[in-house]
């Protein structure tokens, strides 16, 4: 028996305090077996800080994971939030002093947030964007609900190929649709004259709502199919026996119980349409009275001889605020929907 308090010989492969006990041969390691994992106190004497840190992290991996989490979180927060911070600095800098802005503005001009509405009718652009995004979301949710019901709850031949086809459409580049759509929307239809005046859809919300709904529809269908297929058949049967049609069961039972899914699909669609660039840029002439969206509003601060960067920045921030609010509100809805919708099957 060796004295457990005796100084440890790093080359002693027998171990220090358990001489008589049979030892697991795998503990004899090629480096001479310093026994660091077993005898923390003694082993500290013959290790550097890095070795010490490595040994600690092997014993307490949670600490490393937590550290990694903070590193990753800070990285993502920085890359997403710093542009906003910089945008704010640009917006607060008075016109003509835009050089060398890094962490603080050159001067202080909060009036830019008012000025944006004075130079051009930016609120009209915002209203246009809202109408377009809300209309697209409504169209997408109604049609995707019907499609999701069919794909999720009915058996019919060709269901899987059809679903794949729908998903494939969402992979098409929007530019591929642009020329035919632009041509179509500039064609005058006599039956549209009472609605749009000249009979074309160009410069109306329809020119944006129609293609954007179609492009963001497959994702919504996919989300809603997943949710609707998980509602027990018994609930739909019960609703139908109690007095609804299939459609009634969809709207009274299946959709309320799939609230988190509907909220997710709705929020994603709204944000995607609100942020969309390609069609928003091309399907109107950029005039606020012609349903031009926010994008055109921001670009309108770009004149022939000067670019009002500080107003563009202020307008961008104002444009982001509604979406930020929506996300915060919807997130609460989604979480509450997930916890309240406990189903018993």
């Amino acid at each position, binding site marked *: 028996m060796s004295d457990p308090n005796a100084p440890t010989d790093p080359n002693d492969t027998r171990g220090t305090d358990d001489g008589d006990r049979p030892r697991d041969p795998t503990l004899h390691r090629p480096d001479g077996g310093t026994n660091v994992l077993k005898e923390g106190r003694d082993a500290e004497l013959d290790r550097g800080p890095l070795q010490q840190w490595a040994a600690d992290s092997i014993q307490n991996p949670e600490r490393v994971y937590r550290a990694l989490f903070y590193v990753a979180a800070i990285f993502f927060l920085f890359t997403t939030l710093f542009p906003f911070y910089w945008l704010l600095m640009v917006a607060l800098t008075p016109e003509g002093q835009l050089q060398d802005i890094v962490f603080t503005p050159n001067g202080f001009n909060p009036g830019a947030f008012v000025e944006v509405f004075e130079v051009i009718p930016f609120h009209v652009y915002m209203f246009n964007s809202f109408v377009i995004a809300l209309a697209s979301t409504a169209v997408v949710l109604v049609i995707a609900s019907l499609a999701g019901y069919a794909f999720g709850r009915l058996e019919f031949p060709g269901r899987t190929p059809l679903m794949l086809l729908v998903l494939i459409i969402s992979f098409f580049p929007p530019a591929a649709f642009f020329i035919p759509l632009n041509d179509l929307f500039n064609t005058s239809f006599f039956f549209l004259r009472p609605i749009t005046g000249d009979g074309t859809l160009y410069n109306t919300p329809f020119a944006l709502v129609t293609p954007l709904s179609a492009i963001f529809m497959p994702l919504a269908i996919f989300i809603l199919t997943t949710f609707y297929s998980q509602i027990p058949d*018994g609930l739909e049967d019960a609703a139908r*026996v*109690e007095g609804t049609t299939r459609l009634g069961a969809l709207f009274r039972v299946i959709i309320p119980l799939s609230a988190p899914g509907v909220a997710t699909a709705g929020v994603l669609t709204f944000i995607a349409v609100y942020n969309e660039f390609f069609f928003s840029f091309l399907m109107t002439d950029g005039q606020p009275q012609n349903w031009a969206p926010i994008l055109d509003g921001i670009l309108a601060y770009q004149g022939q001889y000067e670019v009002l960067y500080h107003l563009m920045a202020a307008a961008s921030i104002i444009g982001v605020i509604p979406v930020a609010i929506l996300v915060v509100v919807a997130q609460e809805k989604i979480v509450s929907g997930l916890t309240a919708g406990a189903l*018993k099957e």
Partner: protein
Amino acid sequence: MARVRLENITKRYGDETAVDDISLEVEDGEFVTFVGPSGCGKSTTMETVAGLTEPTEGRVYIGDDDVTGLAPKDRGVAMVFQNIALFPHMDVYENISFGLRLRKYDDEEVRRRVEEAADIVQLEGMLDRMPAEMSGGQQQRVGIARAIVRNPDVFLMDEPLANLDAKLRVHMRTELQRLHRELDATVIYVTHDQAEAMTMSNRIAVLNDGKLQQIAPPLVCYNEPTNLFVAGFIGSPSMNFVEGTLVEGGLETNNFTIGLDPGRLSGVSIGDDVTLGVRPEDVHLTQYADSLAAPTDPIDARTDVLEPMGDEVFVYLLLSEAAEGSMDQDPATSPNQLLMSVTPDTEIEANEDVDVVLDRSKIHLFDTATGDALLHGLTDRSEREPGTTPTEADS
């Protein structure tokens, strides 16, 4: 309340036939149970009545109306589901009143009827609870209240007690019987539990493989099953079946012979395979058989395993050495084994040689080839006359 009539209902899913040409009639105010093993088509048959499934062929009538093409909501039926199927996002009041509100009854009427229905199923004071806050039994009561509140013509119950625990199930069984009596309702009830079927129904419809096997009052199904399937399905533990061959003067099995006049059996002749069926309670020890009017000759047997159930003891009997060690076979169908039920005070031990007799009046004979019943009870007046039966002649 109304009659329900099914006419040649057939339902196919692709090549699979779930329901095969079922015709039956449920009388006004009658409680009929569809019973059968899993996948026998009983739920599908009920769904054709509810309108949740459209039959491939055949017509459904409720009252005098052909409802085959009608939507479920227009049929005047209410349904109670196995998985209870309460709407989890509505409280009890909203769940019960769902159908009434859809039909645009005024609020006062809705409240009155909901409270009345809640009274009947003893749910007073729980109307503002959410389904998730209730026990399984309470949830199923809400399901039943939702069904009765609309005062439907027909109640459909699809294994409503299957998800409840055993004690609650027995309790709800009596409640459902009370409800049926109070409401005087036409009820179609689906279950795979033959105890539920026996205790609750006016008539039982036994289904197997999508075909209707027998529809009759419970005791008729028990005492006079039309075929091997019904005989084996109704009754717990199951009836003993012993395969044998019809010979001159009797039925010969591996281990014993039962005397009978083959001329009494129509459809089979000497040399055909016939299956003898006898329930465990109709097998008796010879020394206790004095009370029997018509016992068979004693059969040598050896007791194997005893199962004391408290009110009775099940005794597994081996009829031959060959049977020993073959207990993995179901005793009900093995030709060399019999299950006997005796009273708990009977003096009997495992691994004991005993003589048993069968009650001739309770023996059932089935055509082995078709499964159809040939005869229920070997005693009738002509057999009891001395000297005329082969048994008497033999002994």
